[in-house]
């Protein structure tokens, strides 16, 4: 029987990049969260022999990718399944990120503080995009603006958030994310 505690510990260690990987594939936060939870359940309760630690993240990504492919195929509308080249390239990107000593630190608390300081329209656009999963065109229709204007706004707001988070973490004595 696999060591559940060790599996849980490993899963927690790799959770940030794993969630990011799943999000990069499905690009919708709620679906990403569902699949992430499902990967966690399968990994921790699988009970199979634990792979060598350096393979653990790749193993999790493999499980996640299969779940994502299943999700795409089960969509009622015409499912668009991206070319495997792009999926392979993303897998390579996350494999490299796993090897990096300078692993990204999310600074979620700092990010939440920065989000609170956004103007209402900016916060609204972010929520429509990242919480509701709407694209720029749909957001633009709702806010009576062009999709391009919304895209540019998103780029601007992301940059400002990143800078705000960096500043907050630096003031708190942490390294930048």
């Amino acid at each position, binding site marked *: 029987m696999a060591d559940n505690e060790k599996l849980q510990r490993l899963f927690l260690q790799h959770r*940030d*990049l794993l*969630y*990011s990987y799943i*999000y*990069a594939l499905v*690009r919708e*936060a709620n679906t990403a969260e569902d699949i992430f939870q499902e990967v966690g359940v399968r990994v921790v309760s699988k009970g199979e022999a634990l792979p060598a630690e350096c393979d653990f993240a790749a193993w999790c990504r493999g499980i996640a990718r299969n779940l994502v492919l299943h999700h795409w195929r089960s969509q009622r509308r015409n499912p*668009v399944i991206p*070319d495997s*080249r*792009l999926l*392979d*390239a*993303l897998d*390579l*990107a996350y494999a*490299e*990120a796993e*090897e*990096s000593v*300078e692993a*990204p630190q*999310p600074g*979620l608390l700092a*990010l*939440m503080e920065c*989000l*609170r*300081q*956004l*103007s*209402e*329209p*900016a*916060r*609204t*656009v*972010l*929520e*429509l995009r990242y*919480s*509701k999963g709407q*694209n720029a*065109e749909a957001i633009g229709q*709702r*806010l009576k*603006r062009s999709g391009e204007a919304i895209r540019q706004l*998103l*780029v*601007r*707001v*992301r*940059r*400002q*958030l*990143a*800078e*705000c988070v*960096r500043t907050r973490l630096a003031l708190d004595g942490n390294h930048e994310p």
Partner: protein
Amino acid sequence: MNHDRLTELLAGWEEDGLSPTEMDALADCLERDPDARAQAVQHFTFSGDIARALRSMPPETEIENRTEVASRGERPPGNRLLPRSGRLTRRVKGLIAGLTLAFVVLAVWTYWPAATPVPAAVIARLEAVQGDVYQVSGATRTLVQSGEEIRAGQGLETGDDSTAVLAFADGTRLQLGADTVLAELSDGGKQVDLVEGSILAEVTRQASGRPMRMTTPRAELRSQGTKFLVSSGPNATHLELEKGLVTLVRRDDQQAVDVEAGFYAVVASDGVPLRSRPMSPKGRTPRLSLQGRFISLAFSPDGQTLATGTNGQVDLWDPKDGGQRASHRWNAEWVHALAFSPDSATLAMGGKSSRGIRLWKVGTPQFTQMGGGGLIHRLVFSPDGQTLAVSRAQTSFQIWDAVKHQERFTLSGHAGEVVGLAFGPTNKGLISASADGAIKLWDVERGLELATVAVGTGVEKPRKAVRLLTVAFSPDGSTVAAGYYNGTIQLWNLADRSLRASLRQHAGPITSLAFAPDGKLLASGSRDRSVKLWDPATAAEEVSLLGHEDAILDVAFSPDGKTLASLGKDQKVNLWNVADATSR
């Protein structure tokens, strides 16, 4: 692909708004560029973080109410990350009726700092910008030109073929090399953080007690008026002194050494003692130096000739005295690749254009042209001279019949760009290596892949995601030396795919590797401008050869193993006596 275009594609992918062509372009970019892959991870990680943060926060009002407000355009979007203070200011104004103008100004400045930002102090000015150089401020990167000011809080990045000079008010000048990253400059300009790359510094006399401090990930330098070159990579910091004195401090343990003019020192991650050594000890200066805009070189197997490639021409030299023997003109073609046939009678050359490979009968006007198709990166003859392997900075490479001048196979199977080719002792077996760290064995008679040896992911994980840039195979075929972007050289046993050693004394990407014909020395060239000789059996560094003023492009041993040729971006080929370099 530039940063902004990649951001656009990543955002388009995120919205599910990419056309098939755009999706291909994104896949191409991510496949080829590790920096693009890192940017993609950052992009999606941040998106995921935003989503998770929003989910953790209670909404201030219902989103339907907010969209109505937003669509009426009542507030400007996205540019206020500071507390709103309008009401407070109006109240202040109401309270201070009859007070002095100075008090009003003070209240405005105190409560609305964002409305009247004070520009950061100018630290330095850019001079002599060549290529793409970026000013970096937070997440924003902006192309800059000569004459622009650099302010406190701004950093600089140069591209892979770019340089720039940063000139300070006190006359200090920092010449940034290619692929160099300076972190944000501090107010006062007395501290410079070199994240990676190289700087040639001329520091004017500083005020007593206020030396200019330069830091790298591994070291700290304190100088008070001096001229030096510092190169920094993930593994090592390399310092060469031309004038004055620099105190070099290893950040791990604060051990320090004073480095004088004419000496150099290396702070490395492998724990080698920190000491200052002469740059040009007796017997370690080049015995010959050839000048010219060379970009390739090769020794003939009979040891009589050194060939160099340049724009429109190949020159043949006597390696004993540097005398020029012959030239071959190839108009409008930069000769990137050279290889002599085993009998030294034919010189194969390749360039950048679509005119393919040229086989020149050395010393005669006769030549044959074969093939086409763009940049030739590497050419290698089989031991019997009948076969020529050709790589083109792609994931596949070609096998040509060098006698019939016909292509026999295109061998595909690598996921990354092919960076090394070598024939084994027979004419059948060929080894190829690619940027993703895979080594493959091939039967070139049948055009079949025999095996894959995935080095670079074995016993020892590199400290950072790396790209394999160059390989060399030992003459007995037992060992492969792999050079990486982060300055690490790894020695792998091919038989059992085990990692034998990691060499970490270079402060820049490894550009070239070569084993001596007897296998007792390994030469490495790096963008940190140094050539190093190593004993592959003990993994010890034997010698550093410092005589180039720019990145090393290639290294090659003469067939008798007594001479090493190094080709630098400084338009020099240096020939070094290395017969006594080994300690064995």
